[in-house]
């Protein structure tokens, strides 16, 4: 570690940042309860905790998005006032949200330049910006073409733009809130390379993740929040994954759910040579044929963007099937209205749950009946039955341990993981005949992940046919009976779990047949 006081970006370091006695109340929740937290230059400090523990809240306070009711923030020992992101950016604090705030129709350079004062007054000097981006990219090993359009870039590349944006604005300390949740394993590795470079150069990083192996791999220290309280901080070298899990949850956590032995039944869902388009006009599915049996989990592996979303939407009626046939329990459902398909008890846990699976400005209770709102017991003769709606909400909140002040709380006010749980609870609890689950455990803490996996296995035992779309190979292996690999809109191969290996799947996911290699 070099000992000059400046970072390669030219900005001075934040040797230490300290949050002291931070308290933040929301209606019905104490999200931060006299929390102490600190970050030093050159380290990655992990912030762990269950869904709703208060991680994002604490970091949003640091970034100036929320204002603490009590407590103070010190940089290099001196108290500072942060009342807006502008303040925190000026102080050298940057934050990468999981939802990127990029304009897809602009280039990388234009996105970085957005909202910056320009050397040429009102005109933006894009050449200057581009050159600086290339310099920064060189220093930190972030491969990025300033003239590329954002919509052409993968999620991982878009995240890099956000990092560049923060560095460009002079971030000495960077907060990464669940940056890995949307990345492929390769992209995670690339992110870690960048993070290592940054700490080597003297940046301080805060890293939030529910994946403990990542924490063990990349972090120097780890702090755990539980119910808004700071439980403690330890060097990562003194802990293991299992320690962390137990520490965080406060009880023993198992990692491998019991699959049990289930006899698979008749074919529930059948796709025959299904073709459909995608959002960008490229062929989404190029003739996919699949059989999913009762009591079976069919894993769909593949790098995201290879037709997973299109597959789910073609089956659920949300996307027009161009040719081919989809059959549910013997009846054809190709291109039926989503309402008619839902009616046949097909459940769908969409990947982009916030956008496609719930309504942010509806209450938790209202969101929990999104699928069945027009039917008894929630609706009689066109009138909502508030008593039954409320009872349903109570039951599901308890069963899925959704952390919410009340069932009347707007969904948007829940923590990220708890929003996910609403969709999961609703879709799993309607005794479906078929479930399509896309990235069902993304954003969930380990306890909730374990619970959702158990629930899926329970459904399998009850004879439900399940399609599990996941980029997480561990999850695919833990749950699937058979594994289909999607590559560029086609099924490369379908392999029984017993004969699948990560190597074999990896090759298939890259579009290579092992026999031919």
């Amino acid at each position, binding site marked *: 570690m070099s000992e000059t006081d400046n970072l390669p970006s030219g900005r001075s370091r934040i040797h230490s940042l300290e949050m002291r006695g931070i308290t933040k109340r929301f209606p019905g929740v104490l999200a931060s309860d006299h929390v102490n937290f600190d970050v030093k230059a050159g380290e990655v400090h992990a912030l762990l905790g269950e869904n709703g523990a208060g991680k994002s809240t604490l970091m949003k306070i640091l970034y100036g*998005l*929320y204002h603490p009711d009590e407590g103070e923030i010190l940089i290099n020992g001196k108290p500072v006032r942060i009342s807006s992101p502008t303040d925190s950016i000026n102080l050298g604090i940057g934050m990468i949200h999981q939802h990127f705030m990029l304009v897809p129709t602009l280039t990388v350079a234009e996105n970085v330049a957005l909202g910056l004062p320009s050397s040429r007054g009102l005109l933006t000097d894009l050449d200057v910006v581009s050159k600086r981006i290339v310099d920064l990219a060189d220093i930190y090993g972030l491969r990025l073409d300033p003239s590329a359009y954002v919509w052409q870039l993968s999620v991982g590349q878009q995240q890099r733009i956000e990092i560049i944006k923060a560095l460009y604005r002079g971030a000495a300390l960077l907060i990464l809130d669940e940056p890995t949740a949307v990345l492929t394993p390769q992209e995670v590795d690339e992110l870690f390379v960048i993070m290592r470079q940054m700490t080597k150069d003297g940046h301080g990083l805060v890293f939030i993740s529910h994946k403990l192996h990542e924490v063990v791999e990349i972090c120097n220290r780890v702090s755990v929040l539980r119910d808004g309280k700071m439980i403690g901080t330890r060097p990562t070298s003194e802990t293991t994954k299992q320690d962390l899990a137990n520490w965080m949850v406060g009880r023993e956590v198992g990692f491998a759910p019991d699959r049990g032995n289930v006899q698979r039944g008749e074919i529930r869902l059948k796709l025959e040579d299904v073709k459909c388009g995608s959002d*960008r006009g490229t062929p989404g599915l190029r003739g996919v044929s699949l059989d999913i049996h009762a009591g079976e989990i069919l894993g769909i592996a593949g790098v995201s963007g290879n037709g997973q979303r299109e597959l789910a939407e073609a089956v659920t009626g949300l996307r027009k099937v161009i040719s081919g046939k989809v059959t549910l329990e013997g009846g054809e459902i190709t291109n039926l*209205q989503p309402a008619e398909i839902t009616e046949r008890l097909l459940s769908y846990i969409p990947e982009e749950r916030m*956008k496609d699976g719930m309504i942010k400005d509806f209450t938790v209770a209202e969101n929990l009946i999104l699928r069945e709102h027009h039917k008894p017991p929630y609706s009689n003769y066109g009138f909502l039955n508030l008593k039954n709606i409320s009872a349903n909400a109570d039951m599901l909140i308890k069963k899925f341990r959704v952390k919410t002040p009340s069932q009347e709380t707007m969904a948007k006010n829940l923590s990220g993981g708890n929003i996910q749980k609403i969709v999961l609870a609703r879709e799993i609890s309607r005794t479906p005949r078929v479930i399509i689950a896309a990235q069902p455990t993304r954003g969930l803490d380990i306890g909730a992940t374990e619970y959702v996996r158990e629930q899926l296995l329970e459904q399998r035992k009850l004879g439900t046919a399940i399609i599990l779309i996941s980029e997480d190979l561990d999850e695919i292996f833990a749950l699937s009976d058979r594994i289909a690999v999607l590559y560029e809109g086609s099924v490369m191969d379908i392999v029984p779990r017993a004969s699948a290996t990560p190597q074999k799947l990896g090759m298939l996911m890259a579009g290579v047949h092992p026999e031919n290699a």
Partner: protein
Amino acid sequence: MTKIFQSEWMSHLVDALLPVFATLAALIIGAIMLLVLGVNPIDAYAALWDGAFGSSNAFAETLVKATPLLLVALGICISFRGDVINIGGEGQMIIGAILATWVGLNFTDLPGWLVITIAMLAGFFGGAVWGGIPGFLKAYFNVNEILSTVMMNAIAVQLMNFLLRGPMIDPAQAEAASQIPQTARLLDAFRLARLMPPTRLHFGAVIAVVLAGLVYILLWRTTLGYRIRAVGQNPHASRYAGIQVSRYMVLALLLSGAFAGLAGAVQVYGVNYRMITDGSASGFTGSAGFNGIVAALFGGLHPIWSIPASILFGALLVGANKMQRIVQVPSALIIALNGLVVVFVVSSEILRKQRQRKRLAVAKRDDELPPSGDKQIQQAEAGS
């Protein structure tokens, strides 16, 4: 701007009070204009207050003005919650009034209560048709509803002028040389009851308040309301939930028009007892079709809050008249003042939406995933 975002709460409070600030700002600008005209603004606004609340008759007039505002506002609550913008209240009022008048002039043998009931339903129905057409065009042909509702206003005015000069003209006028474009008078038995004679306060006010309660129930206690709100908030998720987005857009606009149509009918049966035209829409509606939008926004698009909002706005309209008479300002100034309030309140609503979006943009939930290309939901639905 950032300093105003001191805290979440502050920010929400500011949002809630924006329409009030907007009205105050409009009144202050009005005061400056009054000063320029050499009128003492304090005297002027005192006259305004007096005109609106100074006597029981003044207050009754305020309520009479507030009644059509509230009815239109109720419809606006429905359509705006469904994310459909209805600028067609004027036209919908006119069509509702024409149908209701026709009923009153043609069923003279029936008992009063029955004719009134049928007439109100006819007004409701007429407005529904006039709102439903742009709704249909939006849902199935992607025609912008702001443009189409405004155009429907123009058509309604022409229709009214044609009917009142020709087929529906008062036979007495047709015979006399005067040819005033108006219908015959309704029978006395068909008038909505006066609540507080000798003031003009009529039973329509009661209808409006009761309907406010019903619209509340509609929006938050029925499946239909749930669906309209869902479609307005998130069409993607609504489609996923099995709601036919297009259909509920049409319904939202149709219901919105229906309430405006009823407002037209109530004006005829409660105040004018006939239809008469000066050639313009506002000659009949008093611009309630537009002002009702402001009242609804003022009431936060909540049917119950729309009640005080409409009364306030009615007071402003009635009081401004008195002000004009007392301090002798040109009527153009009153119109300008009225317009200022409308523009300011509507802009404040746009500002509020922007602030909300901005807040969301900075405070995006962590687990929200990057956007993918937006599908054209309506097209997909129309196409399949």
